């Protein structure tokens, strides 16, 4: 029995105790037991410059105590789908979320809480919720929508900018959103399911939100701002909490393009949940940062990946709210 270290590309690390006369298949099963995100049939194992073959015995690779085996998820892994997506097929705008899906997410993008698919396509879930909400029974029906929104908070830039644009130009979608948001009961549900939101929800802000949401033009303006800066949008929670009055002021002038004010009147993006709120707080501290500073880390990562045009990188990051994965997808989908 020896102990070997297992390392994965998504930072997860573990150790496995195994006999050296076990097969690679046995090792894969042992790894799957420790790292449930790596099912045995999706693992590829690398040790000392070799890919381990299932039928081989570990000792044939001279694996020894304390050695490290790398585990990589195979490309043929079936992708997770959002639970809420099917309900969107019953809505008249079901074509919207069907816009080109982003290219396959890398194994590292599997953030906790939001599956890659959910994060990449929050509008499927949103539409599901919206459909149910608009039918006049916003109670539990609204909940799938909230799930989608959670995904949005976890990965605000995960949405395809094209899908966003398509949605903004879709009158049916706007109408539905408007109907949904102007329904006081949906708002109550939304607030009740999100304690962070409840804290900032005074009677004044609620009134303001409903007025805004009932106006399709306003909604469209807000959606377009969401597309321009998901990250900035999340600043909204902090903005509202700090100064509801200021938010109301900004609400009167939705075209004021600054990230901060734009975010403050963007209730759509409030639904990001606690993760979003944490980012919002951060955003609120330095709303005037230059884009190059704000996205310095992401720009560095992209440069390392060999994307050598800083201006395009920056533009992609701005469009996707600082999400590197979404930015890269955008770059690939929009060649020069």
């Amino acid at each position, binding site marked *: 029995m020896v102990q070997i270290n297992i390392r994965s590309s998504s930072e997860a690390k573990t150790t496995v105790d195994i006999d050296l006369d076990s097969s690679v298949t046995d090792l894969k099963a042992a790894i799957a037991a420790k790292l449930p995100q790596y099912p045995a049939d999706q693992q590829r194992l690398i040790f000392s410059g070799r890919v381990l073959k299932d039928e081989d015995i570990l000792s044939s690779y001279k694996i020894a105590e304390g050695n490290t085996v790398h585990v990589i998820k195979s490309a043929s892994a079936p992708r997770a789908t959002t639970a809420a997506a099917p309900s969107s097929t019953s809505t008249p705008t079901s074509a919207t979320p069907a816009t080109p899906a982003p290219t396959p997410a890398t194994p590292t993008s599997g953030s906790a809480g939001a599956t890659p698919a959910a994060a990449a396509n929050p509008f499927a879930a949103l539409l599901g919720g919206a459909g149910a909400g608009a039918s006049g029974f916003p109670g539990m029906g609204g909940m799938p929508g909230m799930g989608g929104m959670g995904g949005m908070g976890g990965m605000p830039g995960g949405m395809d900018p094209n899908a966003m644009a398509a949605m903004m130009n879709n009158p049916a979608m706007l109408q539905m959103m408007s109907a949904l948001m102007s329904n006081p009961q949906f708002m109550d549900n939304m607030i009740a399911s999100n304690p962070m939101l409840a804290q900032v929800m005074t009677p004044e802000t609620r009134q303001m939100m409903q007025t805004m949401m009932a106006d399709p033009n306003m909604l469209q303006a807000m959606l377009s701002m969401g597309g321009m800066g998901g990250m900035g949008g999340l600043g909204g929670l902090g903005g509202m909490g700090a100064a509801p009055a200021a938010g109301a002021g900004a609400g009167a002038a939705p075209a004021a393009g600054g990230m901060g004010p734009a975010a403050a009147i963007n209730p759509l993006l409030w639904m990001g949940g606690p993760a979003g709120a944490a980012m919002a707080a951060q955003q609120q501290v330095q709303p005037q940062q230059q884009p190059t500073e704000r996205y310095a880390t992401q720009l560095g990562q992209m440069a390392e*990946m060999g994307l050598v045009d800083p201006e395009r990188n920056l533009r992609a990051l701005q469009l996707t709210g600082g999400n590197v994965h979404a930015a890269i997808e955008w770059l690939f989908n929009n060649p020069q």
Partner: protein
Amino acid sequence: MAKVPRNFRLLEELEKGEKGIGDGTISYGLANPDDIFMSDWNGTILGPPHSVHENRIYSLTLHCDQNYPDSAPIVKFISKVNLPCVHASTGRVEPSKLDCLARWSRNYTMETVLSEIRREMATSGRKLPQPPEGSTF
């Protein structure tokens, strides 16, 4: 500064390879652990994300002759790959076309070579059409 003799240097590299480098995007180890001259090595490169190589695992061999590390290792791809620095029919990484081999320094290691090749995959070879996965030279 004293020169590290070939054997000590290769033992260091062997140990590092067995411990695993970083997140496993590159890996290497002795082809035959009984080889007391430590000449022949295997390497793998995990294709960089957001390139045509994403999710592919490339196998290579590295040969460190008696002059290593004063002279560069001879590197060959086993898995077929289409890269400017790799000979299209033999799989040999052409030293003149890979900067770290062309200007070899004894401070470089097999890890240097593998990560430089991986960098090529993410840059000059990012969009090149690739032979089917699993085919070999």
